[in-house]
């Protein structure tokens, strides 16, 4: 279970939110919505432990993530609004090195299957990533979700520059993750097509 307890966050002079308390149960997804600049990404980065909160704490299974450190990193998969892929490497190399870095080593066959699952065909796997379109690069980053065995997924606007079909595929994957008892936190501008009992919405007003 992931909990935020009385979180507050300030960026520069501006207070983005304060006294924010929210709870994400296993099998459910928290969708953070709000206007541009309302602090959605900052909140997600606080959840990921990249950004320390000004006040309050994030608890994972009841323990403060600032204390858990690497133990907490081992529980999550974070895909930020930057794709984290190298232009000079192929999608296959990118995916495999990202998984190896995260400590979830995968075979080439598994990586190929993941890329195909998100709609990237074989010939694309061996092109340098710099020739891919924005949406294809996004899909290379999201392919990690097909290999990740971590319970907590933190996704920053995963559907940006994805077409309708791919958005559907990623949503299905999210649904499967929740059904297995996983948790998710999602920053999004779009409607997420998930059953209402699995979806919790948090609107930041800025």
């Amino acid at each position, binding site marked *: 279970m992931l909990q935020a307890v009385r979180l507050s966050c300030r960026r520069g002079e501006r207070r983005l939110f304060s006294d924010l308390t929210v709870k994400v149960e296993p099998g459910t997804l928290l969708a953070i919505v709000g206007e541009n600049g309302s602090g959605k990404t900052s909140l997600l980065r606080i959840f990921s432990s990249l950004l*320390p909160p000004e006040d309050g704490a994030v608890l994972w299974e009841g323990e403060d993530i600032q204390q858990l450190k690497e133990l907490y990193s081992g529980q*999550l998969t974070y895909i930020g609004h*930057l794709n984290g*892929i190298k232009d000079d*490497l192929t999608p296959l190399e990118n995916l495999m090195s990202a998984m190896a*870095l995260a400590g979830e080593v995968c075979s080439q066959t598994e990586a190929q299957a993941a890329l195909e699952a998100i709609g990237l065909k074989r010939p694309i796997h061996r092109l340098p990533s710099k020739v891919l379109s924005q949406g294809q690069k996004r899909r290379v980053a999201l392919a990690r979700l097909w290999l990740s065995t971590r319970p907590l997924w933190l996704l920053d606007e995963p559907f940006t520059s994805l077409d309708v079909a791919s958005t559907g595929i990623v949503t299905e994957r999210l649904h499967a993750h929740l059904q297995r008892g996983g948790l998710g936190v999602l920053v999004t501008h779009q409607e997420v097509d998930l059953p209402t009992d699995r979806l919790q919405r948090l609107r930041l007003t800025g």
Partner: protein
Amino acid sequence: MSRSSMWGAIGGIVRRDLLLAMRRRSDAAMSVFFLVIVVSLFPLGVGPEPAVLRTIGPGVLWVAALLACLLSLARVFTADYVDGTLEQMVLVPQPLAVLVVGKVFAHWVISGLPIVLLSPLLSLQFGLSGESLGVLVMSLLLGTPTLSMIGAIGAALVLGVRGSGLLVALLVLPLYVPVLIFGAGAVTSSMAGIGGEANLSLLGACLVLSLFLAPWATAVALRIALE
């Protein structure tokens, strides 16, 4: 955290960085050519007097090695920072300092090791004798990893700052002074017949100290850059 996954993380990052360097060979070649050109300018400028060249040789080679190392420093973390890989590195279930060691080792293989390997050839222009040539190679072998280690702290500190190339030079060059003194000193004293062991030991001490402190300091700076 198990030991094997720690080595896995280091190995993974070294492999990826070397693969990237292979894809962008021109970047690595540039700092090597820079070294060759700077070193070759001195005999042309100072003149062909053997005694003078032998005196300034070790110093020139060492200063050129410092500058060549500096040239490639800006690249250590910038690309990772811009494309989001650095965020992923910070969120790995390993201490960030461990990954920093991997990054720095890859940087040394790409930009430090070629300097070490080229130095015997370059020192021919300065008429160094066989024995002091060996000391020079040894001093560079001990010194260049230290340069990469210290440089990583500077490179992490200036992430996301405009005009970071010059800033990193201003930050890091003063810290390079001990390495320069001991490195060039080792060669000079071996030429004077005193033997370079004392200075080489000090270089070794610098390396151990930087191995101990620099990854940790770099990791802190990287976290601050990402906040």
